[in-house]
């Protein structure tokens, strides 16, 4: 690294003697460094405090955890984990590989993990991903629902020696090791705790890239860490993440060859993308599903027979047409409640929804009538209008429903100005009809698509749907030590969701990206984050 940056200056110095010409201008784009679009992360860049994709991009570059999800298959593979042993799906003994360090030279030890997890689980640190540690014993003490925390560290974590630690969970959770690829579980260096502010100014991690400079709200300059000990060393010299005020501007900049990589092609540009980029465009499935959730706290929607109305609504939606015309195939009609990125082995089952997700206006009308009609004769679909072209698809969806039911006023959109307000109305249980529900997976497990969304009082069960049979099946699945058997249980639970049509699955979302002629080997991982370390720059 150091030698590399000095070389151009040496050349400059030599050239300056001869030509006496300025050398400053060319320095910026020297080497195989690519520039990529970025958005200002919503929260400070702490691993357990980052819950959106912009911060997630950075963490994916500067950190490596015990497990790493394969960018293609989404399979959880050992990264820093030497081995994770358990005999009862509750007590885990984790051995960390020897030879890993942080980019500041500090050794990665069992302590680096335990300290990081304790920090994330401690209520007084205000970490928004704290609930990821909820399965570890002692979480109820470090992070009680109300009142002051009664312990600073998780009693379920214990350092055995330099490279070994044990985890005791509060319940059986067989797929726990597979969740450890999530960013909240990465190790943290002492610098994070000793001088927190300085760390936030310039984060230090153990990933293939190291932060060179960070101008908040403007640019994050990452350079390849030459001494990175892992197998996935970066194939370029670095990445400049530039904050854009608008995705359209980033796209225009890409067209003007002023930017190398745009990982969120705006919906309005999708129809031009083929001619603009001449094939330098990728559109691959991501672990995101969009659904319509219902307010089960409203007695109109909780009454018996309403499952027929919900199924009727589902059958009134022409998913094919909407994904084709509005999303230009960056969405795929959903036929279950998980995501294709899980793969058949991971629990995705195409067609699990069956007839109920197939467009059939006749059947839709009949089902709605049998179920006693729409509450109040009309459904209002609530959504936030500030991002993600939601207005377009809600309008199209309502059109489809109105046509199917032969009633111009059967379905109307109910836009809410900002995402924050939308969320707070959901939290306050103010919904009176179906509302937009999107789910981006935290880790590629079927459990993550079901439990947080449909388990009684789970964190993202916005509609407050509750079903004893579903809960029991999920508990059983979590206790199952055999992965295949666990997945089968989860699928049975998913069938319960289907039979009650707890939420209407709409479509699976793809990740999209466009790139310049300089780049090759551009791909997106199942979290729709570009796999930066594999990109080659010519």
């Amino acid at each position: 690294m150091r030698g590399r940056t000095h070389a151009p200056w040496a050349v400059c110095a030599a050239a300056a003697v001869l030509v006496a010409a300025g050398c400053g201008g060319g320095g910026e784009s020297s080497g195989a460094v690519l520039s990529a679009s970025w958005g200002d992360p919503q929260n400070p860049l702490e691993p357990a405090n980052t819950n959106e994709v912009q911060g997630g991009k950075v963490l994916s570059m500067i950190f490596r955890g015990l497990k790493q999800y394969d960018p293609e298959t989404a399979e959880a593979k050992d990264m820093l984990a030497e081995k994770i042993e358990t005999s009862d799906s509750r007590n885990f003994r984790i051995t960390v590989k020897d030879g890993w360090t942080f980019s500041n030279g500090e050794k990665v030890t069992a302590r680096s993990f335990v300290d990081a997890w304790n920090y994330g689980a401690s209520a007084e640190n205000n970490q928004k991903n704290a609930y990821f540690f909820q399965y570890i014993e002692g979480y109820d003490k470090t992070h009680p629902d109300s009142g002051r925390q009664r312990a600073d560290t998780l009693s379920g974590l214990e350092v055995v020696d330099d490279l070994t630690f044990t985890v005791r969970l509060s319940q059986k959770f067989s797929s726990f090791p597979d969740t450890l690829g999530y960013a909240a579980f990465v190790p943290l260096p002492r610098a994070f705790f000793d001088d927190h502010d300085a760390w936030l100014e310039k984060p230090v991690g153990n990933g293939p890239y190291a932060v060179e400079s960070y101008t908040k709200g403007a640019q994050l300059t990452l350079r390849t860490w030459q001494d990175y000990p892992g197998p996935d060393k970066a194939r370029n010299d670095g990445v400049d993440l530039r904050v854009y005020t608008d995705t359209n501007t980033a796209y225009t900049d890409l067209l003007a060859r002023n930017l190398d990589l745009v990982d969120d092609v705006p919906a309005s540009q999708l129809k031009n993308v083929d001619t603009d980029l001449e094939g330098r465009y990728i559109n691959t499935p991501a672990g995101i599903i969009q659904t319509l959730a219902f307010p089960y706290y409203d007695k109109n929607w909780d009454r018996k027979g309403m499952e027929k109305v919900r199924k009727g609504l589902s059958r009134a939606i022409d998913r094919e047409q909407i994904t084709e015309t509005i999303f230009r195939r960056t969405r795929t009609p959903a036929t279950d409640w998980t995501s294709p990125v899980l793969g058949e082995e991971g629990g995705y089952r195409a067609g699990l929804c069956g007839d109920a997700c197939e467009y059939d206006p006749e059947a839709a009308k009949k089902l709605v009538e049998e179920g006693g009609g729409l509450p109040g004769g009309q459904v209002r679909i609530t959504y936030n209008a500030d991002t993600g072209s939601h207005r377009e698809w809600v309008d199209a969806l309502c059109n489809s429903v109105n046509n199917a039911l032969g009633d111009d006023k059967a379905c109307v959109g109910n836009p809410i100005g900002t995402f924050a307000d939308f969320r707070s109305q959901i939290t306050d249980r103010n919904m009176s009809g179906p509302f937009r529900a999107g789910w981006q997976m935290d880790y590629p497990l079927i459990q993550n698509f079901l439990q947080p969304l449909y388990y009684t009082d789970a964190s993202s069960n916005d509609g407050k749907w509750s079903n004893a049979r579903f809960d029991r099946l999920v508990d059983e699945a979590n206790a199952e030590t055999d992965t295949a058997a666990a997945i089968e249980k989860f699928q049975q639970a998913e069938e319960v969701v289907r039979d009650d049509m707890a939420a209407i699955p709409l479509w699976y979302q793809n990740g999209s990206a466009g790139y310049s002629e300089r780049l090759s080997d551009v791909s997106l991982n199942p979290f729709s984050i570009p796999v930066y370390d594999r990109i080659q720059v010519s």
Partner: protein
Amino acid sequence: MGRYVVRRLLQMIPVFIGATLLIFLMVNVMGDPVAGLCGDRECDPATAARLRHDFGLDQPVWQQYLTYMGNVFTGDFGTAFNGQPVTELMASAFPVTIRLTVVAILFEIVIGIVLGVVTGLRRGRPVDTGVLLVTLVVISVPTFVTGLLLQLLLGVEWEWIKPSVSTGARLDELIVPGLVLASVSLAYVTRLTRTSIAENTRADYVRTAVAKGLPRRRVITRHLLRNSLIPVVTFIGTDIGALMGGAIVTERIFNIHGVGYQLYQGILRQNTQTVVGFVTVLVLVFLVANLLVDLLYAVLDPRIRYV
């Protein structure tokens, strides 16, 4: 003069308090900002409660407002949700927007007034009709259309400029965005100057100046222009505030990380501290600009006296 300024400064206090209170209430009415911080899921109640407490959101609105104003007077504008102090955001955003505004105002003054004088002196001639037509087009086309069109033509098709402004936002990068930002006001300045000049060319003092045998150039700059500029100065003065706060569209199109961008993001994230902080400063800018305009009257027109 001094007493007038003092009186005006005193008048600013209620305006300032009223404006900030309104903004504060409006942002608060939008609902609970903490709910938007946890993505598509409910924040766990303990973290949400702690965040609300840390940002002072658990107190009644009037108390929040008083605490906030108290802090503002000590120079503390609070903290944005991403952990950055709002003053830090201001320090990075205001210089950029001020540069952009200066570029825009310069365009307004130079091009607008020159065109106004030329057309005003040649009423009814082809130049006049031509410019009037152009201003009509500029006024009727929304800024984002002009902006996107220029960006696409100059940035992508012809590659004269870079379509986006770098984070440094140097002056030369701001020429096109400045022109776009100024375009509508520029058209108004042209029309205002034209009307004003056209009216005053028939005034007695101009005829006197011409009769005295003064050179035409002197008649125009010293006598005609000076008097005709009063409405124009008012317009440009109030425009400063509008340009600084209203650059949201232009700043988004050209990727300028200025006040408009921060305000937009603050509103999306319902970040009371950011929005109120920036708007407070904008209100101050507006008030001061207005005062300066009123004082300029006296310089331009000696008949106006302040007591």
